[in-house]
């Protein structure tokens, strides 16, 4: 009776036979999965295909699978203690023992850690007597808190982003007695870190562009990379054949990408849902194939080389100014401000600021357009097409606008990418890029700029950290994508604040948020 009052679900019965059956099924499936891929491996020997047997690896992988499954079963049956022990055992085994391959050790360790975390959380909840209801409330409270403080977080994030290239100098200036010359601080704004963040910001730019189509207009675009490619190639060709500089070619590349968005968008916007998805996927591939085969224009598989780097005015980023009338950044800076030495890092930092400014422009544009009639029309279309149409919204034009704007941002990102790399080839514009950008948008919680930026840092930045494990990087990326989607199906930051509120509603919500926070503290 008391259980019913407390609203606690009855503890699941621990049925030994059922558990054994479950484990046996896991084992059987594991055997089925591993025989063709883990046990039997094809290798070339004397230019003849032979099969190698890897019994040891399969055995260890099977043990890992069954033990891990046992841990999850205990967790399901609300017995976190055994799970914790299993997790600890797995982590220690993975850390200390010699396994047939390193991957197995990493897997063992990672699985152990995940089990430990999950069991620890469950134990903590049990000790505190947290019910399902409390969890829901806590989640809601945290979301409101986050929503409430988005403004402050944004300012802090932008501030950090702006000073990132000089973070080392600043910190060393501020905290000399505490950290001194510690390697960590020095590493913070090294050339490599700034470069990685330039890459991350390029993806943020792309994802914010795609977000307009996917997140706001609700159209599933699987070929976004087409506009990225169009931007890159038009930038490169304009620079090569017409000798245009970065600042002239960049807007032109954006305009060309926009035009291509209009041209490609026009025939397909009548299509709905997944038909639209497959056609955009097709366009992405068509553009790539064209780039491969229009040899005279695009250089085919060899790509385009020697794309000019950005400068400003008559200032170039190089050791010496080769063209008359230009000067190097080192000279310019030394003459105008104070004496500095030439460093290749200057160019890297300059590129970083260009992409940062582009991102800021897109963010401001996006935030503002959401409140304009156009942005509202997108959201109306996303929520219900027929209802929106019967209210007098011209579906084709509104969708076309979304397509064209997102293509423009894609084009800017492409032009920037081309200028940063100095070399482009069709290899950079495969379907996998579209998939990664889409994954960033969805994982960020469609339509939420902050969430998308966070997702980009995770999906692009984390794999960069593991550059050494190059071979395993993409496999881990794919697996991680699956895990994150299962963990948070609606994205990392999934609340969607209404763009337009009726008078007074905003105030009420604000008060609710404050109340909720107080409740949480008491």
């Amino acid at each position, binding site marked *: 009776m008391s259980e019913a009052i407390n609203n606690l679900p009855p503890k699941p019965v621990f049925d030994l036979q059922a558990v054994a059956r479950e484990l046996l099924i896991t084992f059987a*499936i594991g055997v089925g999965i591993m025989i063709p*891929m883990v046990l039997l491996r094809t290798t070339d020997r004397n230019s003849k295909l032979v099969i190698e047997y890897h019994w040891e690896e399969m055995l260890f992988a099977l043990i890992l699978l069954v033990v891990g499954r046992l841990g999850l079963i205990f967790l399901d049956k609300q017995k976190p203690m055994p799970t914790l022990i299993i997790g600890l055992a797995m982590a220690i085994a993975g850390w200390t023992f010699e396994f047939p391959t390193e991957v197995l050790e990493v897997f063992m360790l990672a699985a152990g850690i995940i089990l430990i975390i999950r069991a620890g959380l469950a134990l903590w909840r049990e000790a505190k007597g947290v019910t399902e209801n409390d969890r829901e409330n806590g989640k809601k409270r945290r979301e409101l808190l986050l929503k409430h403080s988005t403004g402050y977080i944004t300012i802090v994030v932008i501030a950090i982003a702006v000073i990132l290239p000089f973070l080392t100098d600043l910190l060393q200036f501020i905290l000399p007695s505490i950290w001194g010359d510690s390697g960590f601080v020095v590493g913070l704004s090294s050339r490599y870190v700034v470069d990685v963040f330039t890459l991350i910001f390029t993806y943020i730019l792309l994802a914010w562009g795609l977000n307009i189509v996917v997140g706001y207009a609700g159209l599933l675009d699987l070929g976004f990379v087409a506009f990225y490619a169009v931007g890159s190639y038009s930038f490169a060709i304009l620079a090569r054949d017409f000798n245009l500089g970065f600042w002239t070619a960049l807007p032109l590349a954006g305009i060309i990408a926009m035009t291509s968005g209009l041209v490609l968008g026009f025939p397909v916007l009548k299509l709905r849902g997944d038909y639209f998805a497959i056609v955009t*996927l097709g366009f992405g591939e068509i553009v790539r*194939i064209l780039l491969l085969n229009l040899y005279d224009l695009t250089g085919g598989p060899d790509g385009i080389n020697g794309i000019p780097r950005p400068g400003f005015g008559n200032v170039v980023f190089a050791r010496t100014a080769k063209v008359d009338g230009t000067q190097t950044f080192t000279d310019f800076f030394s003459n105008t401000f104070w004496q500095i030495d030439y460093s290749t890092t200057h160019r890297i930092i300059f590129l970083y600021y260009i992409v940062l400014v582009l991102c800021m422009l897109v963010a401001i544009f996006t935030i503002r357009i959401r409140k304009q009639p156009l942005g509202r029309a997108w959201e109306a279309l996303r929520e219900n097409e027929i209802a929106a149409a019967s209210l007098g919204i011209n579906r084709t034009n509104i969708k076309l606008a979304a397509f064209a704007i997102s293509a423009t941002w894609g084009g800017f990102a492409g032009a920037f990418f081309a200028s940063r790399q100095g070399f482009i080839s069709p290899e950079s514009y495969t379907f*996998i890029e579209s998939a990664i950008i889409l994954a960033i948008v969805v994982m960020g919680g469609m339509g939420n700029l902050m969430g998308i930026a966070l997702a980009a840092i995770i999906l692009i930045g984390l794999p960069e950290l593991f550059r050494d494990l190059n071979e395993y990087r993409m496999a881990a990326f794919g697996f991680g994508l699956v895990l994150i989607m299962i963990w948070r199906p609606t994205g990392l930051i999934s609340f969607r604040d209404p763009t337009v509120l009726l008078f007074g509603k905003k105030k009420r919500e604000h008060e609710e948020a404050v109340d909720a926070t107080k409740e949480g503290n008491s």
Partner: protein
Amino acid sequence: MAYFLQQLINGVTLGAVYGLIAIGYTMVYGIIGMINFAHGEIYMIGAFIAVIGFTLFSGLPLVSAILLVLALSMIFTAIYGWTIERTAYRPLRNSFRLAPLISAIGMSIFLQNYVQLLQGARVRPIPPMIKGSFKFFQDSDFVVNLTYLQVIIVVSTIALMTVFTLIINKTAIGRQQRACEQDKTMASLLGVNVDHTISMTFIMGAMLAAFAGVMVTLYYGVVHFFIGFLAGMKAFTAAVLGGIGSIPGAMLGGLLIGLIEAFWSAYFTIEYKDVATFVILVLVLIFRPSGLLGRPEIEKV
């Protein structure tokens, strides 16, 4: 004329393979409304198992080796199909539309790299197993070749599709699948085990893809970890072309894509054969937005 006939033969063979893979896409789409992006990878795994099998059983007589490899490839690939559904899609069954899609893309990237890591990044060849052909038509000096292998592929595909259609139309599991496709909630109220039915759909799709994989391995003689992507995309295009959700549509779409590809490569440029496929897809969809044999979608507010 002879040249045309030859291309027709090649196109039909290719189309049979695409059709088999397309059925997997169309069934999954029909029943849970998601694009199973990892299906191309399932086909690739089927083909890889075939390479392993043919290398292992190279001592056996030809017919028994092929039958054994077919059976093994279909069984193991079915296990992969089941596992993928169970781990990557089932937890996301009732979440919003794009979540399973991203999960599927992740699974596809994972499987590609998983096979590359374990089986190597190089092309894996097998020796040609079924040689010989009918030379039945001669036009000046051009001989039309219908290889035994092509006959086997087309005939076995037709047989498999017939059996498959019978399963869908006549057996209990087929009835359950059709019921789930129409209304999952109602089906489960009437005693259909929806989870089980969806699992069976994935298993069947994987088996057909594995069959296609074995046939392609025999036909081309080489397998590579990346073949799943393009084949998957073509097969999905075929499914959409025929009207996604419709099984005869998938077969027809596969056949058409195969024919388009063969004729385009023969009469125009081989570099643009993939472009041709997509252009025709776009044209069909503009004029018949629900595909050739698909039911028009009626949307209610």
